């Protein structure tokens, strides 16, 4: 067991020593001249319970002092920050990142199993270059979901001091000079209030992760249409500058383009592929992401080839076709398919339309 520094260092999990902590930008703070304290074997790692080198620093004015909570081996295994236990590249909880990358990291959690596993991981880390993640996360392509959910700028609200419990009771005698926050405490009913460091580390039952995953579910998505013959994408939000060639040059990477039709008046275009798969790939890669010549283009599914021919006509003409076919009785309901959008139902008095 790693409870004493002991004599036997062969094939045992030893106390950890490190030179510099593995931290994310938010934890480190905004001051480039941060002063850090180092204490060898200062505390036990919160997950593996091994004494490790504790680093402690002030992340900025009016921030609480932060210190490393888990040892460097544990954090390298999961590629997380030693203090906040969030991913080093994306700033996301372990559960979210693993869900996005579909990584099933089964760490043993019980005593000797854990130590044996850690020992092996340590050896692997030693042999690798210190800059790349080791273990299950190595060589993983960043997923779309991760990039959408990731934080782009540091979130210093995390470094604020804790709530002054005396002030909550109304008894804070320190007043202005109290270094703790005089704010109302978090609601105990809120599921985000019961977080557990072991849960956050292993990626199970993490309420913050659940919240993020739910948020991702609610993000706008582009569903492929059920009609299998549709291989056309509607591209909206075109400006004057964008031309047929620009669209061709972008979309050819997904597959052979059958045709590109730009309707300048409507500021849109229809890109038709030869195969359904290439159309789907194009949709996935471009939905809410495509920016051509500074304009963000909106991508939707178009309609099948036959129907598309009719939309090239003017709106009025289309209406009149409907009218001629369906004008009977006092009221009629016209189901009018507009370009690129779904069917729109409108009720008209027959007197308006029948000519």
């Amino acid at each position: 067991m790693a409870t004493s520094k002991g004599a036997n260092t062969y094939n045992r999990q030893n106390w950890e020593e490190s030179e510099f902590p593995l931290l994310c930008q938010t934890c480190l703070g905004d001051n480039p001249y941060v002063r850090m304290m180092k204490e060898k074997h200062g505390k036990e790692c919160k997950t593996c319970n091994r004494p490790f080198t504790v680093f402690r620093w002030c992340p900025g004015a009016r921030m609480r002092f932060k210190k490393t909570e888990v040892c460097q081996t544990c954090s390298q295994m999961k590629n997380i920050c030693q203090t906040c236990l969030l991913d080093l590249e994306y700033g996301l909880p372990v559960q979210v990142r693993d869900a996005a990358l579909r990584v099933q990291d089964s760490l043993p959690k019980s005593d000797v199993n854990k130590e044996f596993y850690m020992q092996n991981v340590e050896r692997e880390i030693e042999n690798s270059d210190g800059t790349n993640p080791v273990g299950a996360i190595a060589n993983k392509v960043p997923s779309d979901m991760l990039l959408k959910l990731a934080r782009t700028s540091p979130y210093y609200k995390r470094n604020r001091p804790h709530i002054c419990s005396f002030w909550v009771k109304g008894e804070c005698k320190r007043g202005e000079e109290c270094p703790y926050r005089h704010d109302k405490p978090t609601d105990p009913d809120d599921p985000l209030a019961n977080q557990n460091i072991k849960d956050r580390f292993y990626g199970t039952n993490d309420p913050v992760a659940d919240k993020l995953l739910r948020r991702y579910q609610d993000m706008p998505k582009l569903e492929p249409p059920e009609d299998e013959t549709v291989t056309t994408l509607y591209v909206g939000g075109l400006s004057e500058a964008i031309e047929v060639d620009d669209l061709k040059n972008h979309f050819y990477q997904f597959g052979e383009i059958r045709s590109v039709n730009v309707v300048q008046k409507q500021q849109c275009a229809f890109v038709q592929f030869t195969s359904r798969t290439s159309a789907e790939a194009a949709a996935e890669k471009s939905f809410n992401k495509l920016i051509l010549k500074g304009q963000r283009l909106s991508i939707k599914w178009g309609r099948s080839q036959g129907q598309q021919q009719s939309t090239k006509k003017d709106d009025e003409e289309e209406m009149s076709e409907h009218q001629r076919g369906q004008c009977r009785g006092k009221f009629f309901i016209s189901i009018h398919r507009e370009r690129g959008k779904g069917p729109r139902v409108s009720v008209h008095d027959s007197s308006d339309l029948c000519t």
Partner: protein
Amino acid sequence: MPKIKRSRKPPPEGWELIEPTIDELDAKMREAETDPHEGKRKVEAMWPIFRLHHQKSRYIYDLFYRRKAISRELYEYCLKENIADKNLIAKWKKQGYENLCCLRCIQTRDTNFGTNCICRVPKPKLESGKIVECIHCGCRGCSG
């Protein structure tokens, strides 16, 4: 009971003039020593001790160096008897340390990064609006 005198000789002239003030300060000190610790932080309980110590030394220092109201003999008698802190007074004679609160606040060995206490930072240099009470003696700023 009156404070124990370390020397066997009687105190020099002028002693009767300062004795009542010294006695008063001693009484306050005893009070600060026996105060209960309820409602105070662990460090906060020590603050009155340091404050009174500073006050006593300040009294003697002022009498001799500023007002020149006592003789050198009496002054040195006070230092010998430890009524005033000779090390603290030695600092007060230096430029920049005239209002030093206590000797702990300039002891760099006590701090993590080998600096002085926060109370030694002059007010204009300290980010404005920040109220500091140093943990050693509760000083709110002893230079500038």
